[in-house]
């Protein structure tokens, strides 16, 4: 008899089952007699559909890690507001710390598409933690791409292994969407810069070791901004209180405050005046990453809803037999595939340095974060009253993904960027 129940919890496959959607065929599994199995590149509801052998191996590693190391802990990390340093370091040891930084100084050297697959998979284990890991990856890439040799040599090995954690500091109390108007100043004093000002809503702030700070070294406008690396412990670097948030509770969020904070001018990443450009280039990828996190959360929620409606009965029938449930699930699955197509398309565009990269990343970000939030919301509704209980994970995916529509550029700013492209032709 085909029984899979022999494996107990002692094997590293914990009892939290891996989810696959039956009924959506993996093209690569079809073996027609007399024909060669052809690899298709079609995207479908199963996130592994249409991937190459190597991509499937990478994705499977992330799925296994998420299922065994993250999913059993996600509720606790949320409730206790724990920053899961050891788990993130374990992820970094597998190569998840600097996924798309070059191998030269310890990055993993993979593509943006590979990174998207990884974050999508990890996000099922814990969306909030994965989102932080993606921010850390973004910072590592910025240093790897724009930093000089000595900066890369010093920081990439430490960031790749997550020996040190990084934060991205752009937003200020007075400048969010209007990022260019930032006012944190960095005035020259001999060989040093003196920073004054404050940054708001900084993910990891206070717990992380390295801060990439966009500050004003020159005059007003984007060309007056530089990207400066500030280490925790530098005199004049303070932190505000830990914010109490609706979600993203496994990462601390604090104000980062500079009071006559002195750093060597050699801490400038890239050229003076290049900071805004570096920040925006970082965000292109960051937007794909955050959208990928939304995909993972939506996938997990969709699967949870499917499992629930097959089991839950009312009026003598499982909910799955009601057309309303069927129609909702169909709509959710369709939005998920549409979102995934946009995200992977944007990742490919970025990998290929396509001319349309900025609007495509913006489209992927706004569309996926909005549609995936709706998918999760519908999934919660399909759970009925149970969806509102913290015993069920749908509410955590909902709370965690809500902020994806706001940060890394609000979905409104995404529309501005797309409109700019649309009206320019």
């Amino acid at each position, binding site marked *: *008899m*085909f*029984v*899979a129940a*022999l*494996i*107990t919890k*002692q*094997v*590293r*496959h914990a009892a939290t*089952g*891996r*989810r*696959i959607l*039956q*009924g*959506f*065929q*993996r093209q*690569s*599994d*079809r*073996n027609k*007699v007399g024909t060669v*199995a052809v690899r298709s590149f079609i995207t479908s509801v199963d996130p592994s559909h249409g991937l190459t*052998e*190597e991509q*499937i*191996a*990478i994705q*499977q*590693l992330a799925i*296994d*890690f998420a299922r065994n190391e993250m999913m059993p802990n996600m509720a606790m990390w949320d409730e206790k507001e724990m920053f899961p340093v050891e788990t993130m370091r374990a992820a970094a*040891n*597998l*190569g*998840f710390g600097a*996924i798309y930084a070059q191998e030269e100084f310890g990055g*993993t*050297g*993979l593509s943006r598409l590979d990174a998207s697959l990884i974050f999508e998979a990890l996000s099922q284990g814990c969306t909030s933690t994965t989102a932080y890991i993606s921010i850390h990856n973004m910072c590592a890439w910025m240093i790897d791409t724009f930093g000089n040799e000595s900066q890369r040599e010093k920081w990439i090995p430490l960031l790749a292994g997550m020996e040190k954690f990084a934060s991205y500091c752009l937003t200020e109390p007075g400048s969010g969407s209007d990022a260019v108007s930032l006012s944190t100043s960095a005035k020259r004093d001999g060989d040093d810069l003196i920073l004054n000002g404050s940054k708001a809503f900084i993910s990891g702030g206070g717990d992380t070791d390295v801060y990439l700070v966009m500050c004003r070294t020159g005059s007003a406008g984007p060309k007056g901004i530089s990207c400066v690396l500030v280490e925790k412990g530098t005199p004049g670097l303070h932190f505000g209180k830990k914010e109490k948030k609706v979600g993203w509770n496994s990462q601390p969020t604090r104000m980062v405050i500079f009071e006559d904070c002195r750093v060597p001018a050699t801490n400038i990443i890239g050229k003076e005046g290049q900071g805004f450009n570096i920040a925006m280039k970082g965000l292109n990828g960051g937007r794909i990453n955050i959208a990928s996190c939304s995909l993972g959360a939506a996938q997990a929620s969709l699967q949870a809803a499917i499992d629930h409606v097959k089991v839950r009965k009312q009026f003598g029938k499982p909910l799955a037999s009601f057309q309303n449930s069927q129609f909702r699930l169909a709509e959710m699955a369709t939005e998920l595939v549409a979102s995934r197509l946009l995200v992977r398309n944007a990742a490919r565009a970025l990998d290929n340095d396509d001319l349309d990269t900025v609007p495509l990343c913006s489209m992927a970000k706004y569309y996926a974060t909005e549609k995936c939030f709706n998918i999760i919301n519908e999934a919660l509704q399909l759970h009925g009253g149970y969806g509102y209980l913290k015993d069920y994970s749908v509410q955590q995916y909902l709370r965690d993904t809500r902020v994806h529509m706001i940060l890394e550029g609000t979905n409104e700013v995404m529309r501005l960027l797309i409109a700019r492209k649309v009206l320019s032709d």
Partner: protein
Amino acid sequence: MSLKVLVGVKRVIDYAVKIRVRPDKLGVVTDGVKHSMNPFDEIAIEEAVRLKEKKIAKEVIAVSCGPAQAQETIRTALAMGADRGIHVEVPAKEMEKLEPLHVSKILAKLVEKEGGDLLIVGKQAIDDDTNATAQMTASLLNWPQATFASEIKKTDGELEVTREIDGGLESIKVKLPAVVSADLRLNEPRYATLPNIMKAKKKKIQKMKPGDLSVDVTPHLEVVEVLDPPVREAGIKVDDVEGLVTKLKEAGRI
């Protein structure tokens, strides 16, 4: 003495999948269903890689019989640290009917061909649970076998193996070359790292057919019927111990 180790790995339906019996009742649905490496074979690969890290083994070769997708399973083994792979091609339709005796013959021939010193396989596959391949391969090779291994130590020219048996733990010594089957608590398999997954792409997988090893895979067994386990029936409550004993006697259980 540095050992050449072969490890048998099987591609099976993933343990977390909800199994469905095929409408023709001759098997289970495998089309479009998630497959992965048999968990006991992951443990076998992990042990072989650890032997290499301890410099007891010099080469680890992952072997799998199956259709084209078996290569994915071999790649997983390579990403965990195996040096190269051998894929014995068996088309999907024939794979359904492939028996442990066929696999044992194939493994025995390969071990001889490669000059292997040690063959490690998972104790059983989670799809057919036959727990026969290790034993039959040892018999065909006329090698000693150490099955259900929960610990392996190397002493001069021998292996000291702790076996998990019904009565507890048994410690035996087997001379090399030998066949070992891996049990659950032998080790905890590592995650492949991303760099190792990328390196695995470059490792070689040799392809061959059962005929190349002069092995005939004609089935000797015929599956008559495959059924779901019976639906669990309701139990009954009894008032006291006497009632329990009476009911058990009535049911012929005691």
